[in-house]
């Protein structure tokens, strides 16, 4: 009734799923900036985001929290000043990071996460989440779990596409981004646009959980490579 897993682009397709069900090529580089405590550049296909983390550091009295660290996220677009769209994305990233970080270990401190969009070719929010996680890892901040972002788009004819390009995003009828945690593969944050059925939502969540396996394996490989000389 159903074919085996799709491993090649353009092979036999299933009924309700798009033939190209794959994540684009991704790449990551850590510690590429000298000033921030942790930095990373995450590239998904052509979408590229640069993340820098400062912390734990001194916090302004007006912003301090007595028992935990204050996390500040800033997303800077390439052209123009940051506006409402960036605020919404910052909110999503901040909620995810706050859930993963053990901020009670650094009370009355500030953690600043700055994301610079280098190029946007679709799946921007998930690329931001991935870059953020790698930068937090690079800075050595204590986290209870790692997280990754996966974007799914539902096309007009009902096909689901993971990691869509901006062309695919524009033509889609619904776009969903999920942040998945590494401990139990649960959804930490979801941000959606468009209309879709409950069934489609659950399918996309299940798909994202599958896709997150690849991304976490990539994290593991990156870190293993990085510390291969010292360990």
């Amino acid at each position: 009734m159903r074919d085996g897993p799709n491993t090649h682009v353009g092979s036999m397709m299933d009924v309700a799923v798009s033939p190209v069900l794959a994540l684009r090529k991704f790449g990551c580089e850590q510690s590429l900036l000298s000033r921030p405590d942790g930095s990373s550049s995450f590239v998904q296909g052509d979408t590229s985001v640069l993340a820098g983390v400062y912390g734990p550091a001194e916090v302004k009295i007006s912003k301090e929290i007595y028992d935990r660290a204050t996390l500040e996220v800033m997303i800077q677009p390439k052209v123009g000043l940051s506006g409402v769209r960036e605020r919404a994305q910052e909110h999503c990233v901040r909620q995810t990071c706050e859930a993963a970080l053990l901020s009670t270990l650094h009370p009355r401190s500030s953690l600043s996460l700055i994301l610079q969009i280098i190029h946007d070719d679709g799946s921007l929010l998930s690329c931001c989440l991935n870059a953020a996680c790698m930068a937090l890892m690079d800075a050595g901040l204590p986290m209870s779990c790692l997280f990754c972002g996966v974007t799914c788009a539902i096309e007009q004819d009902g096909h689901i596409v993971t990691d869509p390009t901006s062309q695919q995003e524009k033509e889609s009828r619904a776009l969903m981004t999920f942040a998945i945690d590494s401990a139990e593969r649960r959804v930490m944050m979801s941000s959606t646009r468009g209309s879709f059925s409950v069934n489609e939502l659950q399918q996309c969540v299940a798909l994202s959980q599958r896709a997150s396996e690849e991304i976490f394996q990539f994290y593991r490989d990156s870190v293993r490579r990085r510390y291969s000389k010292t360990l």
Partner: protein
Amino acid sequence: MRETPLSNCERQFLLKAIEEKKRLDGRQTYDYRNIKITFGTDYGCCVVDVGKTRVLAQVSCELVAPKDNRPTEGIMFINLELSPMASPAFESGRQSELHVTLNRLLERCLRNSKCLDTESLCVVSGEKVWKIRIDVHVLNHDGNIMDAASIAAITALCHFRRPDVGIQGEEVTIYTPEERDLIPLSIYHMPVSVSFSFFQQGTFLLVDPCEREERVMDGLLVIAMNKHREICSIQSSGGIMLLKEQVLRCSKIASVKVCEITELINKALENDRKVRKEGGKFGFAESMAKERITALKSEIAPVEMIDIEEKAEDIICRTGAPCDTVPSPVVRAPGTGQVGEGLQNAWGLDEMEEEEEEEEDDIEQGGPEKQPESETITSKKGDVVVISDSEEEEVVILHQGVEVKDFREEMSSGQKQATSASKKKKKKRKLAH
């Protein structure tokens, strides 16, 4: 976040070393750090590294109306952002002195030197011209942001391609990249700025100061020049007194450096042009260093799809049934809507506690479009919008005979009234129970 202050011993060490003609990274007095230029996927995007200082520049264009006093000239807008990523001292939003200085220097370097032919940016005189916008983001501050920014800006300008425009009588057509090739901007010359830092009241001079050297310097001289030995802008700051010979010597050094840098920029542009023409891969993804231990790339990863549908069905079956959908609001009289009469209280609270929920301002589901708009009319027409906590107040339906003028009112202005109106509706619902 505040910048960690420079300790006295560090300062003395640096000054002593400079007196002995030694620099922290082993460079000579007139040496520049390694300059690396990479281009992105779209035209007009480039990242420039001067040593560890990293700067990103992006050029974009749009059609706007020209300035009144210059109807036949295009507009060039330059914006330099000190990203908080670059240094803990940089804060977003606040315009520090450094931010203003750098912006002004960059503007003088590019705009006043007339390196870009603004006349060629005119489409319809007096009505439509191209506005070229250059955004420069400083990503890492390790000294000498000015030079890196000027290199990035002029490289991005040379790299940029704008859409082609066709004029037929009154009609103006902008062609997409698929229809007609994009055309480059017309650049007359390439101004590049060179920074000189002075120490010990002008006795010692260093080219391309790094961040530590910048902290202990007395003054800074910035000369923007092009390869034809024309000075585009010159600025001396810090209050040091410079002799005429010193300034002339610096300009000679600058002309040598600018020639080298211009050659480097042209080579980088040529390489990128070649790669794009041959159809090779370009962009930041490709320029990421592969051999580094801190970098990793992976191939296209397939996602398994075997039993996604079954899993989804399973989850949906296991979850509880959703609560009853709220019916559409009932319109009792023009300008009012009522939701929820006759439904069971699904909140699990009893009557007493529900009164305390007056303070919440949640707007109910079920026809959210119609509700707030009708409430807006009610509140707008009535001059009585009393937000009172008193439970004894009678609910009054205002103005039953009023004509409903326009349902398409601004939601934002009506939000506050919607809140108070929704409170009224809650009271109404309670009374109805």
